[in-house]
C-alpha cells in the first residue's frame, strides 16, 4: 500500500479517503461515481449509528427501570446490621430492678431500682445525668407492671397497696438561638446541661429530650393486708380522665380485677380516684404464679403458672367473669421461663426451660370445647439457640421482640416473619441480667445487669416484617383462624399488622385477565376471521378502522362506565346476561343456516351491507329476546332468584352445570357427528341443487342442537347427582362490582388489540393458499378454519398473548370495576384486586422507603416480569411465524 503511486489519490476530492480504496480499481479513478457512493455510504453509516444508539438507549432505559425496581425492593429481604455497640457501668448498682426505659431517639435512658433509686443517663455514653430517689414508702415492692410503651407503671406492695407512676420522655425542638449556653458535650453530637440531652438534627435545629417520672399516692386495692404477688396493667383514656385496669394475684392465689378511674378537677387541680374491685373466680389449684397479663382492652386475663399452665379469664362481661380455659403451653416437666404479649396483645409469646419459644393466638372457632368458644392455639415456633429464653421485650411498633437466652445472647426477632433482626452475644452471665428493653423504633436493644453494667446495641433492619415467605407463602396472622395469603396494607388501628402477601394480587391480575380473555378472545378472533375472510372489501374498510378506534377509548372511561353503568345493569339483568351467552350464538348460527335457504341470486345480491345489517338485526333480536325471556329463565333455572341460588339458598346444582356444559357438549356432538355420521353430510354425487342441501343442513343443525341440549342436561343431572356444584367454585355470592363486569370492560379494551393483530396475521396468509382451498371445493368457512387460521396460528396466538399482556397490566378498569377485594376466589361474581390496581391505589399513600412502598415496587417488578414473559412468548412465537411465512 505504501508504494501505491499518489496521483490516483490526489484526484479524489476529500483527503480522508483511505488509500486502499483509492488503489481499489478503475472505479477509484472516477470521482463522480465515487462521490455519489460516498454520500450514500455516509447516510447509511449515520442511519446505522442513530439506529444503534437509539436501540441501545431503549435497552438501557428498560434495564435501568429494571435495576431501579430491583434496588428499591432488595432492602425488603435484608437482615439486620449492627451499627453500634456500647458497654458501660452505671455509678450505682441497679440491684433489684423495677424498670428500664429508653427514649425514641436512643439518647436518654433510665433505670429504676426497687429501693426507689432512679438513674437517668445518656444511652450512648452511659454518662449519668440525674440521680434521684422516688419515695416508695416503707413496704417493699412485691410486683410491678407497665403498659407496653413503658409510660405508665404500677407497683404493688407487700401491704396490698398499689402506686401508679407516670414516666415520660419529653421532646422539644429548639432553634440554635434557644439553645442554652455552657453545654457539656456527650459525644455522638449530643450535649447536656446536666439534665436534658440536646442533639443536633437536620435542618439546623436541636432536639431536647428530658425525662420525668411522677409517682402517685398509694391506693389500697386489696381487702386485707396481703402482698400482691403479680400484676398486670392496662390504661386507657386521657390523663385528666384515665381508666386503669389492674389484675392482681395475691399471696393466696386470689385473682382480682381492679378498675380505678381518676378525674382531675380542672379548676382546683384536685384528683379523685375511685377504685372498683372485682373478685375473679378462683383458680382450680394453688399455683406458683409466674406472670399475669391483661390484654389492652382488658377483656382477657392470663395467669401463668411456672409449670406452663395458663389460666384464661374471659372478662368481656364484667358482671360474670369466667375462667374460660386452662391451657398448657409447655410440655410436662418443662418450666415457663418467659411469658408476654406482643404488641396488640393478641399474640402470646412463651418460652420454656426446654428451649422452646412459641407464639400462641387466642382464636375463636366452632370446634373449640371451651366455655366461650375461644382457645389458645400455638401458631408458630421459633428456633431458639437450644438454651432457654429468659427475658422478653416486645416492640411497641410491630411484632418484633427481644430475648436473652441462657448463654447471655441477646436476640431480636420478628414475631410474624420470624426474621432474625439482630443477634448479639453479650458474653455476660444470664443470672446477672435484670431488665431488657427494645428501643421504640426497633433499632436498639439495651440490657441491664444487677451490678449496673449496661450493654446497648444499635442495629438497623429496614423491613423486619418482610421475607420471601411473608410475601409469597401462607402466613398465619393473629386473629385469623388459619394460615393464608392475605393482603391488608392498612387498617384503622395503630397496632394493626400490615399483611402484605402478593399472592392474592397476582391471582387477581390473572383472574381478571383470564375472565376477560374468555370473553374477548372468541369475539376478537371470530371478528378477525369474519372481516378478513368473509366481509366484502368495502365493508372491511369500515369495520377495521372502527375496531381500531375502540382501542383509543381511554381505559379510565371504560372503567367508570363499567363501574357506574354496566355493573348495576348486569346486576339487575343478570339472568338475561347469562341467557345471552347461550342465546346470542344460537341466534347467529340459526341466522346463518336460514341465510343458506335464500336463493343464490338473492343471497348474492344481499351479500354486502344488507347481510351485515341483517346480522346486526339478529343480534339485536336475540338481545331483546334474552331480555324478555330473562325472568322466565330465572324462574325455570334458579327458582326465580339467581342471587339466592348463588348463595346456595335455593335450587340444585344441575341448571348451572347445564349451562356450563353446553359449549363442551356442542363440541362433543360435532366431533361425534364428524366421526360417525360423516356420511350424512356428504354431498350426493352430482347434486348441485342448493336448496335441498341447505334445508338438509338446517335440519341437521337443529338435530345437533337438540342433541347437545339433551346431552348437556343429562350430564348436568348426572354430575349434580354425583355432588358436583359450580357454587363455591366458579360461581358464588354475587357482588355488584365483579369479575364478570371486569371481563366485559377489559374484554372491550383488549378486543381491538387482539382483533387488529389477528386480522393482520390472517391477511398475511397468501392469497394462493385460499385459492388452492377454494379450488379444492372447500367453503369459505372451511378455508378459514382449516387453511387460513392454522397458517396464521402463531400470529393469532401472539395477538392473544399481547392482549393478555395488556389485560394483566391494565389498571384503571380493575381499579374502578373490580371492587378491589384481595381474595383468592375463582368466583366470577366476586371482585378481585389486581397488582396494577394495588400499585395505583396505594402508592400515593405509601410512606417513601417504607415497607409498603417497597412491597409496591416489588409488585411492580412482579407485574413487569409477568408482562415481560407474556410479551416475550408472544414475540418468540411471532418470530417463528415470520420465518415460516417466508417459506410460503
Amino acid at each position, binding site marked *: 500500500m505504501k508504494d501505491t503511486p499518489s496521483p490516483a489519490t490526489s484526484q479524489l476530492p476529500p483527503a480522508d479517503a483511505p488509500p486502499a480504496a483509492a488503489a481499489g480499481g478503475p472505479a477509484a479513478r472516477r470521482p463522480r461515481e465515487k462521490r455519489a457512493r460516498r454520500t450514500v455510504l455516509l447516510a447509511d453509516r449515520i442511519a446505522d449509528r442513530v439506529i444503534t444508539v437509539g436501540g441501545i438507549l431503549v435497552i438501557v432505559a428498560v434495564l435501568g427501570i429494571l435495576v431501579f425496581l430491583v434496588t428499591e425492593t432488595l432492602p425488603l429481604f435484608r437482615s439486620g446490621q449492627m451499627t453500634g455497640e456500647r458497654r458501660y457501668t452505671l455509678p450505682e448498682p441497679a440491684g433489684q430492678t423495677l424498670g428500664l426505659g429508653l427514649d425514641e431517639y436512643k439518647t436518654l435512658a433510665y433505670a429504676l431500682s426497687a429501693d426507689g433509686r432512679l438513674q437517668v443517663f445518656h444511652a450512648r455514653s452511659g454518662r449519668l445525668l440525674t440521680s434521684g430517689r422516688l419515695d416508695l414508702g416503707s413496704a417493699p415492692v412485691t410486683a410491678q407492671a407497665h403498659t407496653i410503651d413503658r409510660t405508665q407503671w404500677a407497683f404493688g406492695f407487700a401491704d396490698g397497696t398499689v402506686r401508679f407512676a407516670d414516666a415520660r420522655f419529653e421532646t422539644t425542638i429548639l432553634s440554635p438561638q434557644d439553645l442554652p449556653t455552657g453545654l457539656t458535650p456527650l459525644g455522638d453530637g449530643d450535649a447536656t446541661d446536666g439534665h436534658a440531652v440536646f442533639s443536633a438534627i437536620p435542618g439546623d435545629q436541636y432536639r431536647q429530650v428530658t425525662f420525668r417520672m411522677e409517682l402517685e399516692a398509694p391506693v389500697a386495692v386489696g381487702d386485707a393486708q396481703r402482698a400482691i404477688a403479680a400484676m398486670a396493667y392496662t390504661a386507657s383514656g386521657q390523663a385528666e380522665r384515665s381508666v386503669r385496669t389492674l389484675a392482681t394475684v395475691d399471696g393466696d392465689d386470689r385473682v382480682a380485677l381492679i378498675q380505678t378511674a381518676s378525674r382531675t378537677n380542672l379548676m382546683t387541680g384536685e384528683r379523685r380516684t375511685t377504685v372498683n374491685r372485682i373478685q375473679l373466680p378462683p383458680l382450680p389449684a394453688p399455683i406458683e404464679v409466674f406472670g399475669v397479663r391483661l390484654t389492652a382492652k382488658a377483656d382477657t386475663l392470663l395467669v401463668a403458672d411456672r409449670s406452663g399452665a395458663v389460666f384464661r379469664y374471659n372478662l368481656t362481661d364484667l358482671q360474670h367473669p369466667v375462667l374460660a380455659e386452662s391451657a398448657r403451653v409447655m410440655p410436662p416437666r418443662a418450666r415457663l421461663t418467659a411469658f408476654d404479649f406482643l404488641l396488640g396483645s393478641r399474640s402470646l409469646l412463651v418460652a420454656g426451660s426446654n428451649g422452646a419459644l412459641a407464639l400462641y393466638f387466642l382464636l375463636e372457632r366452632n370446634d373449640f370445647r371451651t366455655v366461650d368458644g375461644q382457645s389458645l392455639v400455638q401458631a408458630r415456633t421459633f428456633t431458639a439457640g437450644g438454651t432457654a429464653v429468659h427475658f422478653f421485650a416486645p416492640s411497641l411498633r410491630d411484632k418484633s421482640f427481644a430475648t436473652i437466652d441462657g448463654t447471655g445472647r441477646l436476640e431480636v426477632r420478628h414475631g410474624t416473619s420470624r426474621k432474625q433482626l439482630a443477634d448479639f452475644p453479650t458474653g455476660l452471665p444470664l443470672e446477672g441480667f435484670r431488665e431488657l428493653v427494645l428501643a421504640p423504633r426497633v433499632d436498639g436493644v439495651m440490657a441491664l445487669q444487677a451490678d449496673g453494667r449496661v450493654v446497648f446495641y444499635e442495629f438497623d433492619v429496614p423491613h423486619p416484617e418482610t421475607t420471601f415467605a411473608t410475601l409469597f407463602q401462607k402466613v398465619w396472622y393473629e386473629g385469623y383462624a388459619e394460615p393464608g395469603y392475605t393482603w391488608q396494607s392498612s387498617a384503622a388501628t395503630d397496632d394493626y399488622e400490615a399483611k402484605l402477601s402478593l399472592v392474592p394480587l397476582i391471582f387477581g391480575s390473572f383472574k381478571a385477565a383470564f375472565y376477560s380473555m374468555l370473553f374477548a378472545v372468541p369475539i376478537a378472533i371470530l371478528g378477525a376471521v369474519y372481516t378478513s375472510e368473509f366481509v366484502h372489501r368495502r365493508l372491511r374498510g369500515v369495520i377495521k378502522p372502527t375496531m381500531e378506534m375502540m382501542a383509543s377509548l381511554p381505559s379510565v372511561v371504560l372503567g367508570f362506565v363499567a363501574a357506574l353503568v354496566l355493573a348495576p345493569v348486569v346486576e339487575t339483568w343478570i339472568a338475561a346476561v347469562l341467557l345471552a351467552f347461550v342465546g346470542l350464538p344460537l341466534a347467529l348460527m340459526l341466522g346463518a343456516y336460514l341465510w343458506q335457504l335464500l336463493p343464490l341470486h338473492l343471497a348474492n*345480491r344481499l351479500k354486502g351491507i344488507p347481510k351485515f345489517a341483517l346480522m346486526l338485526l339478529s343480534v339485536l333480536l336475540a338481545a331483546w329476546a334474552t331480555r324478555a325471556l330473562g325472568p322466565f329463565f330465572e324462574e325455570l333455572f334458579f327458582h326465580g332468584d339467581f342471587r339466592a341460588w348463588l348463595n346456595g339458598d335455593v335450587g340444585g346444582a344441575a341448571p348451572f352445570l347445564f349451562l356450563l356444559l353446553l359449549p363442551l357438549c356442542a363440541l362433543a356432538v360435532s366431533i361425534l357427528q364428524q366421526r360417525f355420521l360423516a356420511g350424512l*353430510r356428504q354431498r350426493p354425487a352430482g*347434486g348441485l341443487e342448493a336448496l335441498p*342441501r341447505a334445508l338438509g343442513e338446517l335440519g341437521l343443525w337443529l338435530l345437533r342442537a337438540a342433541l347437545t341440549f339433551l346431552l348437556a342436561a343429562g350430564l348436568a343431572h348426572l354430575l349434580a347427582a354425583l355432588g358436583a356444584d359450580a357454587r363455591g367454585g366458579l360461581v358464588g355470592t354475587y357482588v355488584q362490582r365483579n369479575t364478570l363486569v371486569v371481563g366485559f370492560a377489559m374484554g372491550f379494551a383488549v378486543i381491538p388489540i387482539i382483533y387488529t393483530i389477528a386480522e393482520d396475521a390472517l391477511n398475511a396468509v*397468501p392469497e394462493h393458499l385460499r385459492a*388452492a382451498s*377454494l*379450488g379444492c371445493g372447500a367453503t369459505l368457512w372451511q378455508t378459514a378454519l*382449516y387453511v387460513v387460521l392454522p397458517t396464521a396460528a402463531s400470529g393469532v396466538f401472539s395477538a392473544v398473548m399481547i392482549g393478555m399482556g395488556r389485560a394483566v397490566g391494565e389498571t384503571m378498569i380493575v381499579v374502578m370495576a373490580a371492587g378491589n377485594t384481595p381474595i383468592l376466589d375463582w368466583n366470577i361474581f366476586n371482585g378481585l384486586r389486581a397488582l396494577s390496581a394495588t400499585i395505583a391505589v396505594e402508592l400515593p399513600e405509601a410512606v417513601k422507603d417504607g415497607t409498603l412502598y417497597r412491597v409496591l415496587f416489588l409488585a411492580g417488578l412482579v407485574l413487569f416480569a409477568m408482562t415481560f414473559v407474556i410479551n416475550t412468548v408472544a414475540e418468540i412465537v411471532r418470530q417463528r411465524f415470520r420465518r415460516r411465512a417466508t417459506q410460503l
Partner: protein
Amino acid sequence: MPDTPQVSPDPPDTVYHPMTGAEGSIIEIERFNLWYGDKQALFDNSIDIQMGLVTALIGPSGCGKSTLLRSLNRMNDLIDGLRLGGAIRLDGADIYHRDIDVIGLRKRMGMVFQKPNPFPMSIADNVTYPIKVDGVRDRRVLQETVERALKAAALWEEVKDRLRDSALGLSGGQQQRLCIARAIAADPDVLLMDEPCSALDPLATAKIEDLIDELRGRYTIVIVTHNMQQAARVSDNTAFMYLGRIVEYGKTKTVFTTPRSRRTEDYVTGRFG
C-alpha cells in the same frame, strides 16, 4: 349472473378446425363474455372441450387464458364488479345458473395453479384436504386416497416414507406434483391447469408432462401454457387466444402446422408473443 350485457350480434369470427374427440364434449362454452368492471376481458368465446382429452389454451400474455380457465370453476366469483354474458355448461347444466352450488361445482373440477401452492401441512394432509372438506373421516379411505392420488401424480415413490412431513420441504417440482395429486384426490371430472410448469426446471417440467400424458383419458384436462412445444407435446386440441378472443381452435396438430389465421401462425412460429 345478474347482468346480461349485450352480446355482439355477429357470429364469432373464430376459425374452427375439426377436433380430436370420440366421447363428445364435457364442457360447452357458448358466446361467453366477461367484464372486469368496465373492462371486457373475454369476447364472445365459444368452444367445446372434449371429454377425456387434453385441451391447451395458448396465447400472448394478458389475452385472457387464465380468466377463461378460472371461469370454468367459477374462481372468479369473488372478484368485485365481475359481469358475465353467455353460458358455460358442464354436462349440459349451466354452471352460472342461479341455483347452482358453486362448491359442488368446484369439487368436480380440480385446479392446479401456476405457482405450486401446497398447504403448510403434511404431505398426506395436503392430499386428503379435498375429501376431508367433504366430510370424509374414515382413516382407511383417507389412506387409500393418499396412495392412489400420489401414485397417479407419480410422486408416491419419492414421498411414501415421509407422508407426515411438511409439504413445504418438497422441491418445486415435487410440490407441483403434490398439487396435482391434491387436485385429483377427490376424483374430479375435469382438471384445470394454469401454466403448471412455468415455475419449474426442464426436468421437472418433463415429469409433469409425462404425468399429464398418463392422466389423459382418465380426466378431462384444460391446460394453459406459454410453452409452444409443451402445448404441441401434451395436448389433443388447442385454442389460440388473442385479446380476449379465441382466434383458432382445433386439433393441436392442425393449429400448429396449418393455422388459418395469420395471428395464430405468427404466434406459433414465434414471430410475436
